[in-house]
């Protein structure tokens, strides 16, 4: 068996894509296809009404979901006020509100 040299990164610090649950990211891509268009420019986070008042980074949260990391999103998503300002600044036309609503819905289903 070949040895993987230098792959013992601290589990708490790394994204283990192989082990992560990918159902959430697949459903996000399905229910909000435009979410795939994100190029991570951060315009949404800069504009964000919630992010103006508290620690809330919508760009990072959706990126984490896309890597199968859902814990932080579950903890943070409820901060969004759904005001739609991000929708107006996104240069890629990501339907940010739809993306957030989809994530909200999954999290709720997950709770139950």
């Amino acid at each position, binding site marked *: 068996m070949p040895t993987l040299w230098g792959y013992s990164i601290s589990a708490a610090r790394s994204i283990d894509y192989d082990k992560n649950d990918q159902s959430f990211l697949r459903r996000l891509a399905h229910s909000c296809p435009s979410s795939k268009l994100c190029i991570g*420019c*951060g315009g*949404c986070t*800069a504009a*964000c009404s919630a992010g103006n008042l508290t620690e809330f980074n919508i760009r990072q949260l959706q990126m984490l979901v896309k890597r199968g990391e859902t814990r932080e999103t579950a903890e943070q998503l409820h901060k969004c006020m759904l005001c739609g300002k991000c929708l*107006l600044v996104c*240069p890629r036309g990501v339907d940010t509100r739809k993306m957030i609503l989809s994530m909200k819905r999954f999290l709720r289903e997950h709770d139950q």
Partner: protein
Amino acid sequence: MNIVIIGGGPAGSEAAYRLAGEGYTVDLVEKENSIGGNLNNWHQLFPDRKSAAGLVKELQQRLNHPGITLHIDAEAREIAESAPGKFAVKLSNKTVLHGSAVLLATGYKVFDAKRKEEYGYGIYKRVITSAELENLFTNRALATLYGEAPKRIGFIHCVGSRDEKICNYHCSKLCCVTAVKQAIEVREMLPEVEIFCFYMDMRMFGPGYEEMYREAQERYDIKFIRGRLSEAAENIHGQVVVKVEDTLVGKPLRMTLDLMVLMVGMEAADGSGKLAGSVQVPLYPNGFIRPADPHTGTNLTARPGIFTAGSCTSPMNLTDTLTDARSAAWQIKKWLTGSDKHA
């Protein structure tokens, strides 16, 4: 045989000079009162910092050729095929030019920054465009622009490019390197100023460009923040307060700038669509002219006898524009000598 070239910018001028050298007569049409096009608004060129005015002069001198007739202050309105292989170009001054081939060298237009209302151009005093900054360089007016020299300047990349909100999906290619070049020029004029570039991606595609980027960081102490501006505001002192996310840190960032420079992108010139439309030459969705084939059919269009050169087909730097013009001259010659006419 006569050729009509529409557009007296670098592409049109270069092509005119090359075609005249091959023994053709050329009518060169320019809507402004002098040749040079957008190049007239530039101070220095990248990557070698050559003077733009110098290059314009060089292009102009080459036009002093007996085979070239210059029509300035004349806008081409319509092209019609009067007989097979014979084209008539109607000008705004009622003149009609006839040619066996027409070369479209209509170039580009600079994005109107007012369309990004949230950036405050035309509303806040200290927001200018990259084109205006070139002008300040030429006039040596930057240091005294607001009474005193600015202490912090920000360059905002991708204004009018890669933005579906203003229906421009394309990358204007040159703004990244222009920002780096302008940042360096600013540093040379104002050694104390703090300079930031706000970018989405650094697209340093040309020879020497990436090196310039390195140099900007190393020698000129220019700082780069990866984040797109969401909006700008004006504070009580008239300074511009920007909001971006510093995406590499993952935190929203606010910064007060004494001067904000918007790197305005390139859009298809209004004339391109009108003229191409009059001879049924198709356009890309963003308004630039579509070549016959993106690999083997550049300079050619869907309409035999109608050619293109320069940035009327896509954003292009000066090096590529001049190369493209020479290539167009060769394509036209090939067409007129008949080797391609009945193919």
